[in-house]
């Protein structure tokens, strides 16, 4: 199969949906010029009038996407960096997320908010955050964190066709990652984890870019005779709890790898789920591999220390595998 980048996969998903469904519109800063990292390149001229530039007014244009979604459009708005949520969050969490419940079910808000997250580009504290735990916390939102080009395309097409508000979190350090992606349109359903790797000794749940770290660690583990199952939830809300619990049922051991800040994040969320629902099968403490409780540092030395890497995943996996009461 042909190989394309994560960036191209997203661009293709947008193009195919713009093509397929007239109600899809796309908006964001600099969109006539492909946006800040070229993700929407070419769409502006290819779909006249349906790809909109916006002022630096996140509340207004994200809110506009939401309002338009209630009136028959399927807007895809880009919050350039997820770090900018602070100037547009009300429209997302108090409006879009709550409409359906507050209005007694009498509305659909099929809006997608695409946004870049994650560390690794030396972009420092205000341009490197994960923050998907904040969106996951909010009832009424769906949250997608694709780990590969294949996931990115299928999940974005699903997001656009989905009738609920979706936060679509793209890791900026993955844009150049390449992978096999079908040319035809396809969807990946929400709430269905991908079992990246099977294994009976330890379960590693990893989010977004962390899936790659887990895979690297798993290779190393396998070389040492330890077979790790790797689960990529793909969507953090809804979360495929069944697949996680089933795997822990087999392995009795869990490591959760989350690039987000450590307090009240997905690592704690998934640990807590397992500590409640699969306690009987647990044979070791649940390890969490996360960054420290600090902002993201600028310096390359510090940022490299900050981000969870394969070595840290490996250490955590070893610790739970070797654990004896």
């Amino acid at each position: 199969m042909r190989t394309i980048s994560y960036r191209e996969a997203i661009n293709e998903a947008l193009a195919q949906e713009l093509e397929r469904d007239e109600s899809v519109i796309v908006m964001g800063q600099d969109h006539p010029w492909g946006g800040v990292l070229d993700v929407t390149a070419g769409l502006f001229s290819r779909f006249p009038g349906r790809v909109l530039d916006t002022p630096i007014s996140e509340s207004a244009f994200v809110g506009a996407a939401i309002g338009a979604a209630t009136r028959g459009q399927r807007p895809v708005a880009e919050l350039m960096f997820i770090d900018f949520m602070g100037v547009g969050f009300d429209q997302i969490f108090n409006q879009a997320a709550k409409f359906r419940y507050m209005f007694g079910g009498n509305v659909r808000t099929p809006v997608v908010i695409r946004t870049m997250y994650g560390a690794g580009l030396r972009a420092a504290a205000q341009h490197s955050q994960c923050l998907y735990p904040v969106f996951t916390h909010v009832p009424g939102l769906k949250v997608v964190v694709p780990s590969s080009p294949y996931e990115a395309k299928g999940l974005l097409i699903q997001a656009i066709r989905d009738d609920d508000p979706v936060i679509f979190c793209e890791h900026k350090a993955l844009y150049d990652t390449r992978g096999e992606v079908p040319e035809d349109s396809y969807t990946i359903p929400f709430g269905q984890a991908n079992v990246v790797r099977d294994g009976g000794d330890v379960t590693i749940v990893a989010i977004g870019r962390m899936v790659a770290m887990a895979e690297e660690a798993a290779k190393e583990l396998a070389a040492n005779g330890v077979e790790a199952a790797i689960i990529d939830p793909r969507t953090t809300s809804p979360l495929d709890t069944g697949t996680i619990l089933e795997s822990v049922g087999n392995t009795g051991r869990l490591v959760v790898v989350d690039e987000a800040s450590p307090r009240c994040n997905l690592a704690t969320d998934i640990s807590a789920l397992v500590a409640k629902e699969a306690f009987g099968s647990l044979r070791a403490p649940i390890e969490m591999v996360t960054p420290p409780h600090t902002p993201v540092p600028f310096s390359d030395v510090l940022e490299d220390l900050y981000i969870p890497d394969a070595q840290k995943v490996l250490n955590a996996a070893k610790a739970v595998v070797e654990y004896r009461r």
Partner: protein
Amino acid sequence: MTDTLREAYRLMRTIRAFEERVHDEFATGEIPGFVHLYAGEEASATGVCLHLDDRDTIAGTHRGHGHCIAKGVDVKAMMAEIYGRKTGTCHGKGGSMHIADLSKGMLGANGIAGGGPPLICGAALAAKQQDTGGVGVAFLGDGAGNQGTTLEALNLASAWHLPAIFVAEDNGYAEATSSAWSVASDNLADRAAGFGMPGVIVDGFDFFAVHEAAGEAIGRAREGGGPTLIEVRFTRYFGHFDADQQTGRDGEAAHENLDCLKRFRARVADGGEPAEHVLDDIDAEVAKLIEDAVSEAKAAPKPTRDDLETDVYVSY
């Protein structure tokens, strides 16, 4: 025109009667939560919404009952919602501050000051994309006129050249804080120029003034002429939320002299149409409607445990 006038009077009277009754009922303690009453401001919602139809969308404020009624939301379902009943507009899940009916083009009252204007940019954008000739109207209070979401929306509406109208209802206060202090310009309408749109000021107790200004703005928007900011001015009747300290209530005198219904009656008496007895009949019909709305709401079932976790998502 007589039809329009009859309809205008009926809407304003309905809002007034609804709000006065909610005021009384709230005092009994049976209505949960908070209610913010629109009584006194009827000419604004009515004068604007009479120009609107199915293509159009409005967003209300926390003081939203009037906006809903003027846009045609069912009065009985509204009352049931305020009582938290299953028969309410939102099946009891929203309450006074969140009444919405998309099928009527009402995108919701809003608990967030400045919540509506961005959304209405979206409704206007949808109308433009779908080429329906529809418009979006965001109502907002003077206090909400200082919220960044509102100010951004004004600029976006201009930049995108949207069929959007922003109706700033300046009742002199945001809770107890006067707009004379909080709005640093003399008038909210002075902000329009900074966002590249016309700004006009009208007397909020004068239905005719509001109706005319709104007609012009909405007409222009429908024809592709872009957004307008209309500042509607009045004095607040009741306190901020019902049963509070009534700060901002400028005395009974205001109630006497500054009343869109009284002014309306005086004005149409001069013209002879609609006749006084027609208006009296409307008063009676409305009184009955509100009476029925309250008794039906009180008799209606409350939601149950089965309703707690539904309607969060379309699918999950």
